[in-house]
């Protein structure tokens, strides 16, 4: 059984005071997330990523469909005892200091102070805020707030952590530290649900990803599968002469990256073997063949563009 089950979830918002207008934030979104994964939800601004997380956490209510976490309906607030959340643009009362924020939200998470008082220092140290724990958070920088937010989201030692743009405003070193924390959570068997538009970040840490656009789920799968391009292969070879390069360009529509790195398109295994045979026949040594992978960013942009085109054609 999946840890998070989302079944045909639809969310419509009403906007406007006098003339009510329906805005579709999510449309028939279905998704299953297994335990112990880092799951990345991608999408451009306004895709419905934050809405989906809010529905899962009971902050907003679905118009249609249902969602379950730990096999229980998300309307059941008790399940949140095992959930941590870092919202985008989170805000804490400015008169509290870092230590007090963790104390307050630890208590609201249903824990007893004695059960998490040691964890406060441990987490502040983990996110690099131990020196500033007594400083009022009104004086914290954006990056420090993100670090504190991350510590807050795991104060209750949750099984699932929802993080909405956790590296927003954080410097590259801080980002690396946050990534390490996420991987550490994964190693401890925790599930991380990551909302981000920073595709490179997602690519580095996520096991599975889903792409939302205008409320529709347009792609979902394992990150290795989703970024694989099935018919492009990178050949590492011995040096190839210019004459032979011209032949390859002419007969195989190859892309030459260098004298010993050529990209071939092969739609099936027979075609791939034909290319290998051809190279071997010309006494070219093959050092390696790799299936070319597109970057998540390229794949993401292509999918969004395709959907835009389909939408235009449909209209």
């Amino acid at each position, binding site marked *: 059984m999946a840890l998070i089950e989302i079944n045909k979830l639809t969310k419509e918002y009403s906007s406007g005071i006098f003339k009510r207008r329906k805005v579709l934030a999510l449309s028939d979104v279905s998704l299953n997330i297994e335990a112990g994964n880092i799951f990345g939800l991608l999408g451009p601004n306004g895709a419905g990523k934050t809405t989906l997380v809010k529905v899962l*956490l009971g*902050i*907003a209510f679905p118009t249609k469909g249902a969602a379950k976490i730990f096999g229980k309906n998300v309307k059941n*607030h008790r*399940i949140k005892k095992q959930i941590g*959340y870092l919202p985008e*643009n989170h*805000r804490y009362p400015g*008169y509290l200091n870092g230590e007090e924020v963790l104390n307050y939200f630890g208590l609201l998470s*249903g824990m007893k102070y004695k059960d998490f008082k040691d964890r406060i220092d441990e987490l502040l140290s983990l996110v690099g805020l131990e020196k500033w724990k007594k400083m009022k958070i009104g004086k914290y920088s954006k990056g420090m707030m993100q670090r504190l937010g991350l510590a807050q989201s795991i104060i209750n030692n949750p099984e699932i952590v929802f993080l909405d743009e956790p590296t927003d405003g954080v410097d590259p070193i801080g980002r690396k530290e946050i990534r390490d924390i996420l991987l550490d959570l994964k190693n401890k068997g925790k599930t991380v649900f990551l909302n981000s538009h920073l595709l490179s970040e997602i690519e580095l840490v996520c096991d599975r990803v889903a792409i939302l656009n205008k409320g529709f789920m347009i792609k979902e799968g394992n990150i290795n599968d989703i970024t694989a391009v099935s018919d492009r292969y990178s050949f590492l070879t011995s040096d190839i002469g210019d004459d032979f390069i011209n032949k390859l360009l002419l007969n195989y529509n190859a892309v030459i990256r260098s004298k010993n790195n050529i990209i071939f398109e092969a739609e099936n295994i027979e075609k791939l073997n034909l290319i290998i045979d051809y190279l071997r026949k010309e006494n070219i040594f093959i050092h390696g063949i790799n299936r070319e992978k597109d970057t998540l960013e390229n794949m993401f942009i292509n999918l969004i563009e395709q959907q835009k085109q389909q939408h235009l054609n449909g209209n």
Partner: protein
Amino acid sequence: MVINTFIKGIFREALARKIILTIFGIISFFILILILLITNEAVRFLLSALEQTSGGNMKDAVILFQSEIISKTPLLMLMCSYIVIVSAFIPSMLKKGYIDLILSKPISRFQIVTGHYIAGTVLIFFMNLLLFVIIWIVISAKTSVWHFPFLYSVFWFTSIFAVLYSIVVLMGFVTKNNILTIITSISFFFPVTWLLYWLNKYFEQDTQNIVFSSFAEFFIKFFYYLFPKVWDIQDICISVVKAEPLPDNYFVSISSTVLFTLVMLTLAIYYFNKKDY
């Protein structure tokens, strides 16, 4: 457990916003005035004046003075100040980025509303306790009359606040703005309930009603019974302090006011329960 956390949070916020410090300042100011006014000479003069005129004693004078302290004008001033103090609690909780965090915790929306309501009421209870106990000590020490029923005002004034706070909570959720919350809540308290109180007093008099039509009278009485009777409760408080019999309509006043408070809180919970954040 959750309510305890909210109470701590509200006290922390009140401390940070210098609310508690301001209240201390106001209380100290009143006490200073009392100390200056109630000099030993003034007490002796009052006692001799009472003996010469109506044969009254010092206790009657003290009770009269105490009942003036809890009369309508001080109640109005105190409650308006309290509304201003607590008006920001709900709108500040509803700010984007903070409400998301609160709602992501294992607390029901019912607990969030009631927790904030109880926390705000407890804060004002302690403020009333401080105010009335110190006033009582100063008066009693100066006059040597230790009239305990005056201390019941702490509970009565807290109850009046609790009624008004239910309106503040509902308005806070609906408007998400503390200025609008203050304006709507204070206008409801004064003049709406105040006018209804005096108009009802007018209708209860034996003299014939020549000002209002029977429809207007019905309309006014309808709203009088519908809305909380905070000024009638203040009458009950004065009766308790004066150790006099309670007004005839005390049960209706208390029960309908409690019912109104519950309706306001239910509406606040219902509204909050339906709202997406």
